[in-house]
C-alpha cells in the first residue's frame, strides 16, 4: 500500500524564468519562496517518486491525434526540448524516470477505464516540466520523476469532473497497485490566469486568481467541482487558465484537505498570474478518496 506524502499545485509560466531578473523584488520574492517551499517540503516528505501532471501544450502529439493523458515511461527525462530552450531560458536538466511506477500507472489507469497513452522513449518537455524541475531544483533531490502530460486545451477536453475521477483513480492505484510503503509526491503544474496566443495575451485576471487560490486552499472540493468550470477559466484567459485542470487531478487524488499559499504575484511581462498551493495531507491520509461534505 503506497502513500501520498506530498501534494502541490504550481504554475509554470515560462516568462517567469527568462524575465525573472527584470521583475520587481516583491514579485521575485513570491516566486522564489514558492519554489523554495516546493523543494524543501518535497525533500522533507522523502518520497520515492514524484508524479507531475501538466498540460502538454501540443508538444508531443498531432492536434489531429491528441491523447487526454500521456505518461512518460523512460528511465531518464531530459529537457527542455530544443525549440523551447531560448523561449524558456532555463538551464538544461536530466532527471531519473521510473519505468516500473509508470508501467503500474499505465496498467492501473487502463484497467480502471481511463485511456492513458504511454511513451517508452523521450518526451518533449517545454515549460510544463522544465519550470518546476529547474526553478524547484527537483533534479538535485535524487528522486525519480514520472510525468503525465495532460490535454487541457484540445477539445474535447477532460473537464473538472473527469480530472477529479482521474485523480481518484490515481489514489486508488497508489494505494492498491504500487509497491508497499512506496511514498509518492504529486504536483499539478499549470495556470493561473493567462491567454497564450490570444488577443488578451497581456491580460491577467487578478480577481479570478485570488478567488482560485483561496478555493484551492479551502479543501472544499464540492465547490471546486461546481465552480471551477471550463467556461469560468476560459473567461479568465482562454487556452491557459484551463491548465488548472491539472490541479484538479491532484485534488482528486488527495481528497479534500486544506492548503497553504505563498503569496500571489502579478507582473505584466510574465503574461500570467503566479501563486502556488501546498496541501496539508492528513497523517496517513487514511481514506484519501472519500469526499468529505463541505
Amino acid at each position, binding site marked *: 500500500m503506497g502513500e501520498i506524502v506530498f501534494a502541490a499545485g504550481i504554475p509554470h509560466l515560462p516568462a517567469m524564468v527568462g524575465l525573472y531578473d527584470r521583475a520587481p523584488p516583491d514579485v521575485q520574492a513570491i516566486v522564489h519562496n514558492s519554489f523554495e517551499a516546493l523543494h524543501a517540503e518535497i525533500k522533507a516528505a522523502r518520497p520515492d517518486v514524484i508524479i507531475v501532471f501538466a498540460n502538454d501544450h*501540443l508538444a508531443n502529439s498531432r492536434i*489531429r491525434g491528441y491523447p487526454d493523458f500521456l505518461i512518460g515511461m523512460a528511465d531518464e527525462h531530459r529537457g527542455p526540448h530544443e525549440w523551447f530552450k*531560448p*523561449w524558456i531560458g532555463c538551464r538544461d536538466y536530466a532527471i531519473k524516470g521510473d519505468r516500473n511506477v509508470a508501467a503500474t500507472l499505465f496498467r492501473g489507469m487502463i484497467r480502471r477505464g481511463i485511456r492513458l497513452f504511454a511513451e517508452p522513449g523521450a518526451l518533449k518537455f517545454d515549460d510544463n516540466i522544465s519550470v518546476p524541475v529547474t526553478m524547484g531544483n527537483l533534479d538535485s533531490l535524487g528522486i525519480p520523476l514520472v510525468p503525465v502530460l495532460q490535454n487541457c486545451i484540445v477539445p474535447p477536453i477532460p473537464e473538472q469532473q473527469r480530472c477529479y475521477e482521474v485523480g481518484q483513480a490515481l489514489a486508488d492505484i497508489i494505494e492498491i497497485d504500487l509497491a508497499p510503503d512506496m511514498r509518492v509526491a504529486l504536483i499539478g503544474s499549470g495556470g493561473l490566469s493567462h491567454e497564450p*496566443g490570444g488577443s*488578451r*495575451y497581456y491580460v491577467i485576471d487578478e480577481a479570478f486568481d485570488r478567488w482560485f487560490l483561496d478555493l484551492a486552499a479551502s479543501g472544499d472540493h464540492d465547490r471546486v467541482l461546481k465552480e471551477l468550470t*471550463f467556461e469560468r477559466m476560459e473567461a479568465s484567459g*482562454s487556452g491557459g487558465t484551463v491548465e488548472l485542470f491539472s490541479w484538479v487531478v491532484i485534488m482528486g487524488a488527495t481528497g479534500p484537505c486544506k492548503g497553504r499559499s505563498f503569496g500571489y504575484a502579478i507582473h505584466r511581462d510574465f503574461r500570467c498570474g503566479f501563486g502556488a498551493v501546498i496541501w496539508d495531507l492528513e497523517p496517513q491520509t487514511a481514506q484519501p478518496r472519500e469526499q468529505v461534505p463541505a
Partner: protein
Amino acid sequence: MTTSRLKSYDPSLAVHDLVQDLKWDPDLREAFARDEAGVLDRYPLQGAERLAIEKRDFKALYDMGMHPYLGGQLSRLIWGNDAGGGAILAVNNLVASLTGKRQGE
C-alpha cells in the same frame, strides 16, 4: 464577454501540421526562414489559409479556426523565440494583429 475560441477551432486545418512540424524540425525551420513559400507549398493549405499566413493575419487565421496555442507558436516562429527579445516582439505583433491595435496605443 469573450467566448472561447477553443471549442470552435477547426482541427482539420493544415496550418496546424505546419506549425507542429516547424517546432519539431530545426531543418524545416531553417528552410522556412530562407524560403517560406517553398515550405508552404508542401502543405495542403486552403487559399485563404495560405494568404493569411503570408500576410501575418492572425485574426483571419483564428476566424477560420486555427488553434490559438499554435497561433502563438507561429508568431514566435516568424518573429522570434527568445524570452527577452523575439518572443516579446512576437506577442506584441500577434496581439496587434488580433486586436487591430499596437501595444502601448
